[in-house]
């Protein structure tokens, strides 16, 4: 069997199976028709296999489990969409979703705004050891394991922790309280941990964006008599459009899918005050052994993230 003979039917099959008809143009050597396509798939094969095996397959399993009442080991009972109904009817579960959206303020809005202001200030200091030091300090939270950071923050927030000690020292003892344990302060308190974490990320991202902006734009603005605020609004902000979209997307996903900080610092308490979908999924799946319900909540979380992230991506595309 010659190479030509072997490849003939293969081309034919590939064409029928929906591979690009462009390759079927006559007058070109036959083996050229398949190679680019086949090679492309071959090059992608390792990544596709890994993606299919470790992302798509588990994802499809999660969707499948969500339709069953299952303890994770024994026999499962098909219950249709009952788990989804539970997610949206049980107050403990849907309040977790509400909390995730409240956290967006702390995880996304505050860091983005703060990051923009800090980046604009740091641009002017961009030379010198001071700026490098500030950049390093701001980015440091990214280099600390989240669990360790959360533990450190629980110490800061404790009844005799640093925050309350400072409050008492300056005569504001009335405000001192166990921040993570009180119903009214627990959610904002874990939110602040998220803000602390994300501000450095946002600032460094925006600084990089400013760095690639044409300096002549700033010069032109100055020559036209723009002040700092005007310069920020007219040059920096438009230049950072894509970085802002990236920052908001990433931090919104952090907020919606938050787990580590809350699992370590409050476990969703006091009451159900700081319960978020990530923690609820783990508790349902591994403590209560309600694998079906946990899977339904996970699917809802995924859909929530997609609903927020995909439209944001559209905003980021240049016109």
């Amino acid at each position, binding site marked *: 069997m010659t190479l030509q003979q072997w490849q003939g039917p293969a081309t034919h099959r590939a064409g029928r199976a929906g591979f690009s008809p462009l390759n079927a143009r006559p007058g070109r050597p036959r083996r050229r028709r398949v190679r680019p396509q086949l090679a492309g798939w071959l090059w992608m094969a390792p990544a596709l296999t890994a993606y299919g095996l470790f992302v798509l397959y588990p994802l499809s399993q999660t969707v*499948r489990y969500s339709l069953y009442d299952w303890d994770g*080991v024994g026999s499962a009972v098909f219950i249709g969409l009952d788990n989804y109904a539970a997610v949206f009817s049980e107050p403990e579960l849907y309040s977790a979703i509400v909390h995730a959206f409240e956290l967006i303020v702390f995880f996304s809005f505050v860091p983005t705004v703060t990051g923009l202001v800090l980046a604009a200030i740091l641009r002017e200091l961009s030379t010198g050891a001071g700026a490098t030091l500030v950049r390093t300090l701001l980015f440091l939270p990214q280099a600390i394991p989240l669990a360790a950071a959360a533990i450190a923050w629980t110490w800061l927030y404790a009844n005799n922790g640093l925050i309350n000690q400072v409050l008492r020292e300056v005569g504001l003892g009335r405000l001192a309280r*166990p921040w993570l344990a009180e119903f009214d302060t627990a959610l904002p308190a874990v939110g602040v941990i998220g803000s602390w974490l994300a501000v450095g990320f946002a600032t460094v991202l925006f600084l990089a964006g400013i760095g690639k902006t044409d300096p002549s734009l700033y010069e032109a603005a100055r020559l036209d008599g723009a002040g700092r605020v005007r310069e920020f609004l007219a040059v920096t902000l438009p230049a950072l459009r894509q970085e802002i979209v990236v920052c908001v997307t990433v931090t919104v996903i952090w907020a919606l899918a938050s787990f580590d900080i809350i699992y370590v610092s409050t476990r969703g308490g006091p009451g159900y005050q700081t319960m978020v979908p990530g923690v609820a999924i783990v508790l349902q799946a591994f403590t209560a052994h309600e694998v079906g319900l946990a899977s339904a909540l996970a699917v809802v979380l995924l859909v929530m993230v997609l609903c927020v992230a995909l439209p944001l991506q559209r905003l980021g595309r240049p016109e």
Partner: protein
Amino acid sequence: MSSMARSGRLRPTGMVGTAVAFLAAMVVLQACSAPGGGATPDDAEPGAVSTDLGSAPVTLRMHVNADQRDYMAELAAAFKQEHPTVTIEITAEPPEVLQQNVPRILAAENKNPPDLLRLPTMGDAAKNRLVLNLDRYAELYKWGEIPASQFTQLRVSSDGREKGTGSLYGVGLGFGVVGLYYNKKIAQELGFTQPPATLADLEAMLAKAKSSGKTAMIGAGNSSFLFQLLWLAHAGPQPISEWTLGAPDATIDSPEAVRAAETVRRWAQKGYFPADHLAIDETAAVGRFAKGEALAYVNGNWFAAMLDKQLPGQVGFIPFPLVAMDGRRTAMSAPLTYAIPARSTHHDAAAAFLNWALTSSQARRITIKSAGIVPGGVADQPAAEVAPGTALYDTLTAFQQISRSDGLVAFLGDASEGILAGTLAPQTQLLVSGRVSPEDYVRKIQADYQRDLGR
């Protein structure tokens, strides 16, 4: 369902579209077959049982909680001296890691399953026939002579829904028992020379401590121990036992339980707990009691040895006082339970070890000295020599008193797998902070209990 509906509007284009189509295809392909269930053996009863360990060397593999490693290592060494052919290999893991992995350890189709396993609750594992039915060994080793209440929590009905009836699936080597620790020094300063005999006595002591500027009682902010003890104090052991074991029609929505919840809330409102009560976890609670911060502390005998070390001669332990002083005592108690996985190939040797740990006086001494808990087995068997006047001595006495009045009940938190973290802990935080009424507190616990048990 709003976010589900919204997802329908996303136009599936490019990679997203391919992924969605792929996912949908996989789900459709699999949806007709239920997950799980395939690995379940038909029968979890051993074939032949024997007390004869043979002469060939046997290695038993045992999975234990990390905090019990030393205790189990001591038991294993002592057992090997009596039975040189049996070696016990211990794998210790943090309790939460082990308990989350138990279903997988038991169900895994590996060729080398563990032979002994720490397993706090038998329900799902027994229902799925993953742990060995021990009825034949109970007969062989005459465990019928041991007080039946020691095995109550380890019996499971064949559908796995009800405990306390049906076959035996585990053995409790030792027992935890919850009661009232009190600081003798603070009590004396307040003018009390005797521990409280009734609930009214206790409340008077707490009030006196509060008015003298002391912390009256300390405990974890999310702990339901105090509520359960107060329910026992008002209702006696019967309804609580039925509820924790999942008896049909059992309910916590009763006037006695509401009174117990009211008492917890009243004590919180009167300031008997520290100001940062909600911020206190179990570790912090016992740590602060061990520093002499509070008059009273509700928890289990497992802290007695540590408290004796921290505050020598200062800590006493009594069964929680009841409403009336009629000599009856009751408390929650949990066996330190070990089970034999159904796939174990050395179940004779594993059962021999459990029987030895339960009945040998040397093993019972190790249980007290090393684990600091009350050994199981026949009640009149000699216990180790423990000095009177210590909290440890008090816990052994208290267990005997409670055992004699048949007052041992299981923990509320063991009633279902999800109830402790999912309901009792958050609801108790809501109760002590006055955000849920005593009536709604018990109603919610009952509702979640019924949902968990599929009723």
